[in-house]
């Protein structure tokens, strides 16, 4: 259908230290014992998108990801890996592959996306509206099932991340305004011209930008060329396109609209008040037809329409962009979003690899996953956790609400709660971890207790 796909796999994200390291770039972080990138690739494969361009930040990461992809998807996908420098940003990544882009529309997907919204839906919406840009918006998953378990309360305490403010037209098809949470201070400034054209705008703060975009190639490349300072797609390119959607029309119709006519549009409410409620700012003006007039014949003025595709509520959609998100996603994927993995749950609602060995009186609760060749000693208890491959776990170990990666050794009597334990970690006897992240290869000495800590080896650079 004349689409090209660019997957932005990122490099070693700062947000995810200590989970990521030189050896494990962000794209290869395991989610339910599979690299997170595999979910995106399989989503694309399911939609029959087999020619991909993979953009990776950093040489090492590129090598690792490239070798993993070539191993795992040898005959299934045709992937080209492009390497960019660490600080190129997402827009920089696109710039680097710009000369490879030939199709009329480009689908840009973030490598850390887990969702089951078919990319075809976004592409179809994009084509239907003949849009310049279409973004997938979704309602972020409610983190953590509310359970009476000991760990349940922890999640609730977490604050929702910074909210994006998104303005939509009344048909919920057009993006009129975008501001990411970080930029939003007390005021939200909205262009008067856009309001006038749209007549009505719905401001929502309960939507998440899933970083799945469809772009018109020519416009995208034009913007990337014209604005060499743009770093991020989300923070720079998308807002720019949304802001300038009327501009092109104004130029073509010959009546210059004041594009920079910013106006403080009396909405000085606090961010928090937006959450989960929607305000209709202005209901006047019915010049909608100008922006959305498709009633007439087809030769409507060329306009850079920015559209949004809002994922249906029942679809799962999440991004792995923080440590909190990492544990949430792991839990969700083993639990309610299990269909993403393609595994089927056993009768106990969990997934235990046939080669895993369990000691006597060891219980593995629902929503758990045990990887290949892992061994558990006696009287262990595992709840809502994912345990990777070839882990050796001693007796009387409790693992609750945690992620344990591959080749981890856990000795007797440890308690691990709401934590992430990376590969090759060695936990000695009677270690107690709560809300901790343990970096790869770290050794936790016997009997130590850590709470809300980040443990990692000093990088020997």
């Amino acid at each position: 259908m004349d689409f090209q796909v660019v997957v932005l796999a990122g490099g070693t994200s700062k947000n995810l230290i200590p989970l990521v390291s030189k050896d494990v770039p962000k794209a290869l972080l395991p989610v339910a014992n599979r690299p997170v990138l595999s979910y995106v690739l399989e989503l694309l494969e399911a939609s029959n998108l087999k020619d991909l361009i993979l953009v990776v930040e950093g040489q090492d990461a590129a090598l690792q990801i490239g070798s993993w992809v070539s191993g795992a998807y040898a005959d299934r996908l045709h992937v080209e890996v492009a390497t960019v420098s660490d600080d190129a940003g997402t827009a920089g990544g696109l710039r680097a592959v710009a000369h490879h882009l030939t199709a009329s529309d480009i689908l840009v997907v973030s490598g850390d996306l887990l969702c089951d919204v078919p990319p075809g839906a976004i592409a179809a919406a994009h084509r239907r509206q003949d849009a310049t840009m279409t973004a997938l918006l979704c309602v972020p998953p409610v983190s953590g099932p509310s359970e009476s378990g000991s760990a349940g309360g922890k999640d609730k305490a977490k604050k929702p991340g910074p909210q994006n403010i998104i303005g939509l037209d009344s048909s919920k098809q057009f993006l009129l305004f975008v501001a990411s949470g970080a930029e939003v201070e007390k005021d939200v400034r909205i262009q008067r011209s856009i309001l006038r054209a749209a007549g009505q705008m719905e401001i929502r703060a309960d939507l998440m930008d899933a970083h799945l975009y469809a772009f018109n190639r020519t416009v995208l490349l034009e913007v990337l060329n014209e604005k060499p300072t743009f770093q991020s797609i989300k923070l720079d390119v998308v807002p720019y396109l949304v802001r300038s959607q009327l501009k092109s029309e104004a130029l073509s119709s010959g009546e210059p609209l004041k594009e920079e006519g910013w106006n403080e549009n009396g909405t000085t409410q606090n961010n928090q008040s937006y959450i989960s409620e929607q305000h209709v700012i202005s209901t006047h003006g019915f010049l909608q037809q100008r922006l959305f007039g498709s009633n007439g014949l087809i030769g409507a003025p060329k306009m850079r329409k920015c559209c949004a595709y809002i994922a249906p509520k029942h679809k799962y959609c999440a991004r792995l962009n923080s440590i909190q998100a990492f544990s949430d996603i792991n839990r969700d994927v083993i639990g309610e979003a299990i269909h993403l993995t393609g595994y089927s749950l056993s009768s106990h609602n969990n997934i235990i690899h046939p080669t895993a060995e369990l000691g006597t009186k060891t219980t593995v609760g629902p929503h758990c996953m045990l990887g290949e060749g892992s061994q558990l000693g006696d009287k262990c208890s595992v709840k809502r956790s994912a345990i990777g491959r070839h882990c050796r776990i001693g007796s009387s170990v409790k693992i609750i609400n945690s992620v344990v990666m591959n080749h981890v050794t856990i000795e007797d009597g440890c308690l691990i709660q709401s934590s992430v334990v990376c590969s090759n970690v060695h936990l000695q006897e009677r270690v107690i971890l709560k809300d901790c992240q343990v970096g790869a290869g770290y050794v936790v000495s016997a009997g130590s207790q850590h709470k809300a800590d980040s443990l990692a080896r000093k990088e020997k650079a």
Partner: protein
Amino acid sequence: MDARRVSRMVIDPKVRQVGFVTPGASSEPMKHIIESSSMASSSSELTPSGNSLSPVMIPPPRHAIPVPVPSPLRRPSIGDNMPLGSYNPSDSLLGASPTISPSSRNDDDNPYSGIPSVDLSDEFSPRWIDRTNSGTISNTKADDFGHKLPQLASSFPFSSNLTAVSMVKMPLPRRGAGEVETNHSMSSKPLKEKTSKAERRALQEAQRAAKAASKETGGDKQAVAFGEGANPNAKQAKSAKPPPQKKDGAPGASSGATSEKKGVDRPPEKERKKDVPAPRMQFDDTQRVEKAKRRALVKPTETMNRVELFRHLPQYVHGAQLPALESKFFEVDQMHPHPAVYRVGLQYLTGDISGGNARCVAMLMAFQEAIKDYTIPLEKVLIRDLTAKINSYVSFLITCRPLSISMGNAIKFLKARIAKLSVTLSESEAKAALQSDISRFINEKIVLADKVIVRHAVTKIRDGDVLLTYGSSCVVEMILCYAHELGKQFRVVVVDSRPKLEGQALLRRLLAKGLSCTYIHINAISYIMHEVTRVFLGASSVLSNGTVYSRVGTACVAMVAHAFHVPVLICCEAYKFHERVQLDSICSNELGDPDALSKVHGRKDLNHLENWANNEKLQLLNLTYDATPSDYVSMIVTDYGMVPPTSVPVIVREYLREHLLI
């Protein structure tokens, strides 16, 4: 003879026809037989001498017959003759079935000779004659008639009697096969004999020559149909036959002869299909619906509560199709249409594009793009392959939304252009030609036509007029705007209706231009009508009986206007005209989304129809079109001028053929 007469009474119409056909055939059986034997030699000479079309010999009788009996006035006299002519068939009835004596069989032959001549009687259109002609062609096998007659019976009202004739034959095949063969040869002779009436001979020969010449030109087609056509045709014939005839088919025919017969039989069959428009898909026919589903890219899901009267229309849940299409967006499928077509389909589905002209233009432009990107696959011919492609695109578009008549006309035009492409053109030339054809169609038939219509219609607007329009027709909007630009002083009443409320968009645009408007809903139409001086309406199509097929509600507006003696002007481009005749809006219509009826915008408290689909006793009907009888239409403004509705067939006849040829 008495017995015969009685039997004649029983099968009266048949007898009459037979008598009619063979007026001078035989007053006495003896004479008849003698003649037949004498003619046998001559006919046998003729048969081999002819080419594969040797059966052409038989046509003469048909043509000849109308000649002696040109006017219906003569019928009564034929009736007088009837006892004579009727002799044979009645004999066959009595003689053949109870006794199997050879003598009776001789008489049997006569009914055969009579049967084809029945077909030939002047009551039948030339087309039918053609058909039977080719049927009788080869050896005039008994089962030829068996195949033919039931088909006739099913397709032609008069022939209901003819089925009875074919029943008579039934006993025949039960005899030994060999006997049947002889029978056939016999049967052909008397047939020839009748045709050979001395005074008609010369005339027949002349006609035959003309016929042969004309067939020669169509010969290629027949040859093509020959090979591949035989089988399907055989099937067709079988299925058409009532069960008893099946029996006679099997033993009777020798293979070579049948294949020839079938091959020859084919082309007229084809012609018939061309002439009679293919029946529209009836969606209460489960078998065909299943079949269509298998072919479709998107599996349509059907609504629960169908309205009984409208079961034959496509009824799909509107919400379910879009996600299905979306999820298949990237799948490479043979059925998958070109991206441009796909986009247009999606736009139809979501209602982004609506209105006859916009939809038609969007479709044509998508086809234009598709043709631009088209390359001829290896070992294929552009004409055939591209037609197939276009067909698949069209069926995709139909799954998104049923085609409008205007789109049907445009597609017909495009296909005609493809078919007419000369074989010598190179690929790029052919593509360029098609693209320019399409843009010419858009320009001439839609854009220019609109301009002409506006010019015409504006002359009907005078200062002080109050114009009423319904819904949102783009031509009417152009007219109003143009009249406003000319400085005419008038007022506009925009009538609207739920659930689409298309009038609001029109109203907004008119107000933006500075026209003074009144906005009402259709239920207030009778109150406003007395101050209206003209009604301007758009149309989706105008049918050849003058019926205007348009957005639902148009008929109501036109009727009220008629009652108030307000002239109703329909503005419609001529490419939307169609030769079809439609008397009501039931047989062909489009169903909208029933959910649109249950929701009232801005009134969340009006939720009495929530979950209406769960109530078996409730059915919602959201019709999209209705048919306005021509009585209510004062004038139709088209690109060929302002015409009364009675002149539509003239335009269809005189101009639409030509527009296919542009």
